[in-house]
């Protein structure tokens, strides 16, 4: 982890040994944010069943403060894309993402949401939601077990914890020139138009040996 401006780490650990806990406003803010993620109640396919199981008593998502599934995107800050995103559904997913208030995060849950999964060769399934919206955590699996979703949530929590509010690594919504919304794809003649958003989609390029 990079050194943050403000307090000296040595002094901080010395103080905490003496029972004096110090923090910064940024750490306090991130601590509050990471422990009160409100997911959008949003299931697309069978992964949603695992997501529902995660929120129930056995796996108990409430331990992480993330059990408040909101029926409206206006009140949610975490979108769990749980399941197959068909090309019919993709514009709605992007529109819902646009309607969520900042700062917002996305977990792509399951093989379909991250890549198209078993339907990758099909004509009607989007090959990964990260073509249109920025995804923070990808979970493989078909479907992933609830433990995998919990792990993704913890990964996201550690990401939020390390987010700086100032400097060049600050979140997108604090960058004044960053656009407020991502373009919503439309149904074209053969495929969604555009087929991906070059702002967020950076596919790995194949390098062949000569």
């Amino acid at each position, binding site marked *: 982890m990079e050194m943050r401006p403000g307090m000296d780490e040595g002094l901080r650990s010395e103080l905490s040994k003496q029972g004096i806990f110090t923090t910064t406003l940024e750490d306090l*803010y991130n601590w509050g944010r990471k422990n009160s993620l409100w997911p959008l109640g949003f299931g697309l396919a069978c992964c949603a069943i695992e997501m529902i199981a995660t929120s129930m008593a056995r796996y108990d998502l409430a331990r992480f403060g993330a059990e408040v599934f909101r029926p*409206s*995107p*206006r009140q949610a800050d975490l979108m769990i894309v749980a399941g197959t995103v068909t090309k019919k559904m993709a*514009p*709605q*997913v992007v*529109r*819902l993402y*646009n*309607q969520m*208030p*900042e*700062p917002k995060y996305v977990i792509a849950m399951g093989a379909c949401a991250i890549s198209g999964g078993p339907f990758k060769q099909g004509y009607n399934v989007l090959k990964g939601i990260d073509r249109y919206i920025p995804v923070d955590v990808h979970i493989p699996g078909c479907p992933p077990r609830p433990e995998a979703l919990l792990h993704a949530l913890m990964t996201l929590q550690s990401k939020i914890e390390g987010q700086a*509010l100032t400097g060049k690594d600050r979140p997108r*919504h*604090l960058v*004044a020139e960053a*656009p*407020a*919304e991502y373009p*919503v794809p439309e149904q074209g003649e053969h495929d969604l138009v555009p087929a991906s958003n070059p702002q967020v989609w950076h596919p790995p390029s194949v390098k062949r040996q000569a």
Partner: protein
Amino acid sequence: MPNEPHPYLFIVLLMLGAAGFALVPLALAWVWARAFSPPKPGKNKQAIYECGLESKGDAWVKFGSEYYLYAIVFLIFDVETVFLLPFAVSFSGLSAGAFVAMIVFLLLLTEGLVWAWGKGVLTWR
């Protein structure tokens, strides 16, 4: 005596404390939001409909006035049953006046049924 504070001063102080307790967090949240949550409105974000789909057409749709017939037939068959059941249960203990009142009520509803029948509401088209 002139040096003693006003007896109601404590109440005023408590009221100020209570108002501050409520308002200071709100003010802090407002200041924080100004700095770290800049508003970013957009066409999708400002949309009224929030289920992901775009709304189509006008909200000022017309309802057919002939739906009142369904309301009347509902009254005859459903509300009548609600009154018929207690009527049947306490039938033997009813006074003559209550009996006559119930019969009048039934006759009124039957008249409505005859009228609706006459208008052809019960015919399936």
